[in-house]
């Protein structure tokens, strides 16, 4: 194994570097804060001869994803980057990419959706594309952003999966923050990720085929089932590839990673960069004798319900922390977690905390507050308020 060089770089550079190591053929992209540095870096790599690939400087994100679909359909390895309004604009094409089973990878700088317009960290953009049939990975730090790009290509292109994948790094908190990363050697990535050869078909005049047929009611449901089954069966492949990655590069990945959960009575479930702060809060609370644990969600799609049950099934309380909101209900991670436990006899009491929208800071004290509130519900044996917003200006709370 080659040496892993250490670099201190921003999150966007980490995802761009991860992408570069995967040797993509075509990168159609459109700038949007906070992911713009990704296409800039890729352009630089190409300009400097460090990457043999073609950028398409498209006129919109809709066209970015459309061009990814075109390129992927002839068997090119392709990726893009986007965020927020850009992902909203390409929404239509996300479903089409997964429906045609094209393993496109997208680096996301997670950001809030307008209105009001806001460029800061928030998971609403990718959560709003939850049902698009893409695999979804979320990074806690820049190293994970880099590694998850490589993992995303490997998992997406696996013939048992063949689904597009997005890798989220939180806007500014990661995209623009400098952190140390270890960079796998090119030859090792080449070995880990062989060139892409679509096993299900590609556009080629030598063997003409039609992609994107009209699916009548007679066929649509079976075709969808086939696609969804690939997603449903992907956890096995993801676990296998995570393990292979760990063997090769020495860093461990899990769909959910538990921290101090073994004897925990109350568990905080987090996703993305907030996890670091939550971990520090858990450490402090542990020192105070509180039986608290933390579970970090790295893979949101497919939702790792099996692991969540193992980790939190015996806990008394589960505090689900969402950096997104589905108006009229609550956070998406909460809704899914609750759904997972619905038929279980033994399950934790669950509370949902909405935090960090539009880049609102999340402090250790906020996690302690969430813990306390959950503990109170556990002691009382019931939950008064299922969804609570944290770190708010109290004056606007009614």
């Amino acid at each position, binding site marked *: 194994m080659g040496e892993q060089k250490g670099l201190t770089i921003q999150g966007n550079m980490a995802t761009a570097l991860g992408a570069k190591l995967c040797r993509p053929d075509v990168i159609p992209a459109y700038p949007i804060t906070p992911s713009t540095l990704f296409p800039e870096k890729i352009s630089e790599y190409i300009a400097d001869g460090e990457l043999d690939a073609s950028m398409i400087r498209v006129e919109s994100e809709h066209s970015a994803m459309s061009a990814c679909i075109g390129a992927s359909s002839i068997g090119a390895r392709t990726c893009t980057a986007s965020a927020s309004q850009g992902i909203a604009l390409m929404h239509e094409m996300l479903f089409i990419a997964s*429906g*045609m*089973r*094209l393993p496109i990878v997208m680096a996301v700088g997670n950001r809030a959706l307008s209105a009001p317009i806001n460029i800061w960290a928030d998971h609403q953009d990718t959560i709003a594309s939850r049902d698009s049939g893409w695999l979804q990975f979320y990074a806690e730090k820049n190293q994970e952003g880099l590694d998850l790009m490589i993992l995303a290509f490997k998992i997406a292109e696996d013939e048992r999966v*063949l689904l597009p994948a997005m890798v989220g790094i939180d806007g500014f908190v990661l995209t623009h923050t400098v952190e140390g990363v270890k960079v796998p050697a090119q030859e090792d990535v080449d070995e880990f990720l062989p060139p892409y050869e679509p*096993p*299900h*078909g590609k556009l080629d005049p030598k*063997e*003409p*085929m*039609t*992609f*994107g*047929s009209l*699916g009548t009611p*007679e*066929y649509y449901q*079976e*075709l969808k089932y*086939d*696609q969804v089954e690939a997603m449903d069966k992907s956890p096995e492949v993801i676990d296998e590839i995570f393990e292979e990655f760990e063997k090769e590069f020495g860093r461990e990945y899990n769909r959910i990673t538990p921290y101090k959960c073994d004897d925990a009575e109350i568990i905080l479930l987090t996703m993305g960069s907030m996890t670091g702060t939550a971990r520090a809060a858990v450490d402090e609370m542990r020192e105070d004798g509180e039986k608290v644990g933390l579970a970090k969600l790295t893979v949101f799609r497919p939702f790792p319900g099996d692991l969540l049950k193992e980790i939190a099934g015996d806990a008394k309380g589960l505090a689900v922390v969402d950096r997104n909101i589905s108006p009229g209900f609550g956070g998406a991670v909460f809704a899914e977690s609750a759904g997972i436990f619905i038929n279980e006899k033994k399950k934790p009491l669950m509370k949902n905390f909405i935090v960090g929208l539009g880049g609102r800071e999340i402090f250790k004290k906020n996690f302690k507050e969430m813990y306390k509130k959950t503990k109170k519900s556990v002691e009382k044996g019931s939950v008064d308020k299922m969804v609570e917003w944290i770190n708010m200006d109290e004056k606007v709370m009614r």
Partner: protein
Amino acid sequence: MTKVKITIGGINKDAGSSKEYKTGGWRTMKPEVDVEKCIQCLKCFDYCPDGAVKKTDDAIEFDLDYCKGCGICAKECPVKAIVMKVEEK
């Protein structure tokens, strides 16, 4: 229900397979060619939306599996060699 054939991503590898679908049944009028009059200019071939005109040695013939009976061939024939007749079923 017909037997459902499912491919990954709904990719259809049977290029040209719509030929299995016979559109001749849509027809209410049927073209007939007078072989004697036909000058084989092949305007009817060019103007057939359904690819239902075939060249023969001395004239043309219709592929009634696909002819929808639109009547363009009869209308465009410069020597009036094609007439439309009511389809008898």
